[in-house]
């Protein structure tokens, strides 16, 4: 009973937050709604006895990713109203729902149809975090290392990409300076 109440509550909240995130025209609203949604999702993980995953979710998404977005948004003019396309809403939502249903169908169908046996069963004797650690550092060691390298690469790439000409800021420059800079750039391109 308690589980059901929690599920429906968080489901409602998550859907609402994400709905706001994709529909609002204010970037800050969207960011905040997204962060809230992420935290609500971690609640599901706790309900599902995936404590470690829940913690990760909060740390990575609400902590790192959202912070990253927040910093990123400082570069952009967030006060500007976000203009959206007036696409055919029916087509968009139709396509979305259809593909979502298909994805879930494909993922769920084999499990519903056949009795799969767990290849890495949960060990009730250990806590979730310990359990995850055991599996992650034995069976999934190589993917884990690869993921680590990938994160490193992503970090370096992020620094290199964003760090170029950090001293320049279009928002702080006057129009004339911007035009001059663009001319310079064009010259470089042309010469």
């Amino acid at each position, binding site marked *: *009973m308690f*589980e*059901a109440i929690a*599920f429906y509550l968080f*489901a409602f909240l*998550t*859907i609402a937050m*994400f*709905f706001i*995130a*994709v529909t609002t025209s204010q*970037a800050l609203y969207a960011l905040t709604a*997204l962060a809230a*949604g992420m935290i609500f*999702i971690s609640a*599901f993980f706790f309900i*599902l006895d*995936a404590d470690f*995953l829940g913690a*990760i979710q909060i740390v990575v*998404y609400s902590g*790192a*990713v959202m912070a*990253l*977005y927040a910093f*990123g*948004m400082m570069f*952009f003019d967030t006060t500007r109203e*976000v203009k*959206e*396309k007036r*696409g055919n809403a029916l087509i*968009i939502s139709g*396509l*979305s729902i259809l*593909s*979502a*249903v298909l994805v*879930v169908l494909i*993922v*769920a169908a084999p*499990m519903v149809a056949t009795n799969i046996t*767990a290849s*890495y*069963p*949960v060990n009730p004797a250990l806590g979730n975090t310990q*359990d*995850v650690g055991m*599996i*992650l550092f034995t069976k999934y060691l190589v993917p884990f290392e690869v993921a680590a390298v*990938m*994160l490193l690469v*992503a*970090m370096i*790439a*992020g*620094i290199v*990409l*964003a760090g170029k000409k950090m001293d320049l800021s*279009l928002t702080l420059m006057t129009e004339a300076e911007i035009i001059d800079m663009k001319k310079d750039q064009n010259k470089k391109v042309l010469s």
Partner: protein
Amino acid sequence: MEIGLNHYLVLSTILFAIGLVGVMRRKNLLMLFFATEILLNAVNIAFAAISHYYGDLTGQMFAFFVIAIAASEVAVGLGLLIVWHKRHNNIDLDQMSTMRG
């Protein structure tokens, strides 16, 4: 009332659909990134739920790696976004038409 796997799968479907709507209707690149995060999270819920109901940790492992990928994506994507913004002073998807044939 027992909450089963199907409940989670339906929830996952709904969130995935919301994410796709975002991907398709957003014009601001930053918002597009938000939508992709929603997509990834929707799938994560499904993974965790399946993991729970079948007593198999593989689902959690997958969710774990998905989170790692999402983090990398944000790092690289934001870097590119900043470069783009510096060069063109906007992050409007419709303005990125250099691939026009």
